């Protein structure tokens, strides 16, 4: 089912949760709505489902306007962050619920329901749990039950509200890969709301980054990560070093193919901000170029697959984070207090509106 969100605005009292948001989702895609809490992503999802009414704008599903239609006419499946399973029903009864409440004329026979429930439980790998109660399952299992329950009514659109938000890191990772494979099998248009950038980048076809009720950028995971459209997106998707002030001459890698950039020192009256990711910074023991920034090593964190080095710029006393490969770290033989010279391999400059 294709989705068109057309200039949606939603206010709660005087607070504008969604400010003139428009979005098109082609049929069969898995879209991630990514943003910090309070950015309006969940509200947008609930408006799509019909759980909330927008103050302005239209929702069009499959070329039919559904803005004023009741939730039951929209054929959506909704998965809640805290599962929202029916506690007093077994897993099988939970999954069967959507089929059992159908009007008698459309309701499948008891055997058909039973068969369908077991197919769905097989799909979410929980056949053995059919007769358990939700409290007897782990968080990850509960969310899979919730997903099977949502799929039972054969929704045209699957809406997932932070589905893995309440789970621990390892289970989250497993489940989002599993969700991606499931989507590749079923091809139901899906919208995944999350505040976890890794989850959004890994699971979705396209990422919609939201901030303060507005869409900051829409793009493939590569696009939003490699070419962030706004300072917010740059900040939100991964760690970043921020340098205030104007870059003396060169602006981008294209302009300067030999990869030598100058980093600005703090110049407060300039309205330009330079963003560099920690892994795009290169360190050297000796100055090879006048534009390199001089800094001293404050901490070295060697745990993990890469080495994180925290530097202190000598002139501006700004903290700079650098990520090195283990090999590079061994070559450099960094110790606390060492003086190093920093230059970026890649950077992005944004003009900040002057206040």
């Amino acid at each position: 089912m294709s989705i068109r969100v057309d200039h949606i605005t939603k206010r709660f009292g005087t607070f504008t949760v969604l400010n003139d948001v428009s979005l098109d989702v082609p049929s069969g895609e898995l879209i991630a709505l990514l943003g910090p809490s309070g950015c309006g992503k969940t509200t947008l999802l609930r408006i799509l489902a019909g759980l909330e009414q927008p103050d302005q704008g239209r929702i069009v599903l499959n070329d039919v306007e559904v803005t004023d239609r009741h939730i039951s006419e929209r054929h959506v499946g909704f998965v809640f962050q805290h599962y929202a399973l029916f506690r007093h029903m077994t897993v099988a009864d939970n999954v069967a619920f959507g089929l059992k409440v159908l009007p008698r004329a459309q309701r499948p026979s008891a055997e058909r329901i039973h068969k369908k429930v077991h197919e769905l439980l097989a799909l979410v790998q929980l056949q053995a749990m059919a007769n358990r109660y939700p409290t007897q399952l782990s968080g990850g299992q509960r969310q899979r039950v919730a997903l099977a329950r949502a799929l039972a009514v054969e929704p045209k659109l699957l809406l997932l509200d932070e589905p893995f938000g309440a789970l621990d890191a390892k289970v989250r990772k497993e489940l989002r890969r599993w969700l991606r494979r499931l989507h590749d099998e079923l091809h139901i248009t899906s919208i995944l709301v999350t505040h976890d950038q890794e989850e959004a980048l890994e699971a979705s076809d396209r990422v919609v980054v939201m901030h303060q009720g507005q869409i900051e950028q829409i793009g493939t995971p590569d696009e939003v990560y490699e070419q962030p459209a706004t300072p917010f997106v740059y900040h939100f998707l991964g760690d970043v070093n921020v340098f205030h002030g104007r870059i003396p001459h060169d602006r981008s890698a294209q302009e300067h193919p030999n990869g030598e950039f100058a980093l600005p020192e703090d110049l407060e009256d300039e309205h330009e901000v330079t963003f560099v990711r920690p892994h795009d910074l290169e360190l050297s023991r000796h100055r090879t170029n006048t534009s390199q920034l001089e800094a001293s090593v404050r901490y070295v964190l060697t745990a993990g697959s890469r080495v994180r080095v925290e530097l202190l710029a000598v002139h501006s006393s700004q903290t700079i984070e650098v990520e090195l490969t283990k090999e590079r770290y061994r070559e450099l033989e960094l110790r606390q207090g060492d003086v190093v010279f920093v230059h970026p391999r890649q950077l992005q400059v944004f003009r900040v509106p002057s206040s």
Partner: protein
Amino acid sequence: MSFALKQPSVLPGFGLTLGFSLFYLSLIVLIPLSGMFIKTSTLTWAQFWETVTQPRAIASYQLTFGASLIGALINGLFGSLVAWVLVRYRFPGRSFVDALVDLPFALPTAVAGIALTAIYSSNGWLGRHLEPLGIKVAFTPLGVLVALTFIGLPFVVRTVQPVLQALDKEAEEAAITLGANRWQTVRAVILPELWPAIFTGMAMAFARAVGEYGSVIFIAGNMPLKSEITPLLIMTKLEQYDYAGATALGVVMLVVSFVLSLLINLLQWWSSDRRETH
């Protein structure tokens, strides 16, 4: 499962609090009740049986327990409804209505009895309009039912309210997204969560109604075999210095009440155990 007297814990206080609780309960509940059994035992078995099976006594049991049970059921239904409205909706005067619910708790029962009688007697505000329809409330068993329903209302409302407040709204929303209509959602999703609280409230309303005296005697008319409740019969026996006979009736009430509350507890346990089984 171990049958140790207590779970080992670093937090002290078990011995002291349990000891005091048992002492206190004995003093307040157990000793007076056993005194009643001891007094009753001054009767022979035949005397006891004769006292408690008099037609007048039997009729009073039927009225007391019957009206209490029906009253509890009515409160179960409408008390839950009141709790629902108070928890789910915000409307002007809500806190006033909320305070109103406690009134049957706070009012001296005799005052309640007089007020109900005044309203439902044949020239009272309501009784005046009910009489032409052939409905007599005051001085009939129906009046007893009205009084017992009145005093039991707060119990159901106050036990259901906190449970409704804590109820997860997402489960309801999930039911709607799955295509359930409102009635299906209420029946299959909300009510199963509320049953234990409703049963508890009804059990308390019932227990309260069985022991009720003050509000009933004014509105009941107290006609033997017709609108006389057991507590009144006990009072009558006391006034005739028939202490053993009074306690005999008391013992019957106690046993029946105990069995009935046990049954209600079983029902409550049955309605809540399903999701707690492991």
